[in-house]
């Protein structure tokens, strides 16, 4: 077992080392330390900036993605009797115009049928397709 740990601190070798007398050890050490601290602050600030930007980007991206995921009504899709309309639930990969169209009751929001839709573009839009209802179209239980 080493007895070095039991020796008084002053007797240790590294405490015996002294800088050259002509060398202004303390001020340089201070300067060195302050530069280190400054650099650390710089890195920290940069990381905060990058992190903040990344966070902002992530929040914006997620908000846009969430907005893209929300179902919406297809324009002019309400049936002649006003009972049913078509909604689109966007689906599929990002940057792809696709989704599940839902045949919904206007009052109850009950879905009485669905079909997959895909088209050109980067996302499904309210004017994705046109609906031509037969005059006697109806949805049972809507």
């Amino acid at each position, binding site marked *: 077992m080493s007895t070095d740990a039991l020796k008084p601190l002053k007797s240790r070798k590294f405490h015996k080392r002294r800088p050259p007398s002509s060398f202004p050890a303390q001020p340089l050490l201070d300067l060195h330390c302050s530069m280190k601290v400054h650099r650390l602050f710089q890195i920290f600030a940069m990381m905060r900036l990058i992190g903040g930007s990344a966070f902002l980007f992530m929040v914006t991206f997620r908000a846009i993605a969430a907005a893209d995921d929300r179902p919406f009504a297809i324009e002019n899709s309400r049936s002649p009797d006003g009972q049913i309309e078509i909604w689109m639930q966007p689906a599929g990969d990002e940057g792809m115009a696709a989704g599940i169209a839902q*045949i919904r009751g206007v009052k109850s929001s009950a879905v*009485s*049928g*669905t*079909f997959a839709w895909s088209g050109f573009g980067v996302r499904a839009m309210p004017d994705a397709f*046109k609906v*031509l*209802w*037969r*005059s006697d179209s*109806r*949805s*049972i*239980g809507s």
Partner: protein
Amino acid sequence: MTAAVYALNAKHQWVEVKLPTDAYVETIKRLSHVSDLRSGKGYGSPKKWLADGRLLLEFCSRDIFYEGEELEKAFAICLQVTGKSDAPLRVARIVSIRLEPRQSPSN
């Protein structure tokens, strides 16, 4: 443009009435004497529902020898999509195809 037809069946579910594909295109080509259809499969814009529950579609021809909109021919196709007691057909039936009079560009 492509079209899709959905109808309520006896179980009150919306089901697709498939449009005829290859046979449909071949029939249109044979009857219209065109070599190709502008919209590939030949499904044009749905125009209107007729009183007897038939669907009228319009499509344009695209002849590979005569490119140009002024040379395109417009056709009206009448489809039967429901059968007895208004039950949806599995595949729509072509009732008729007729050449539509082309409007002059000045109109």
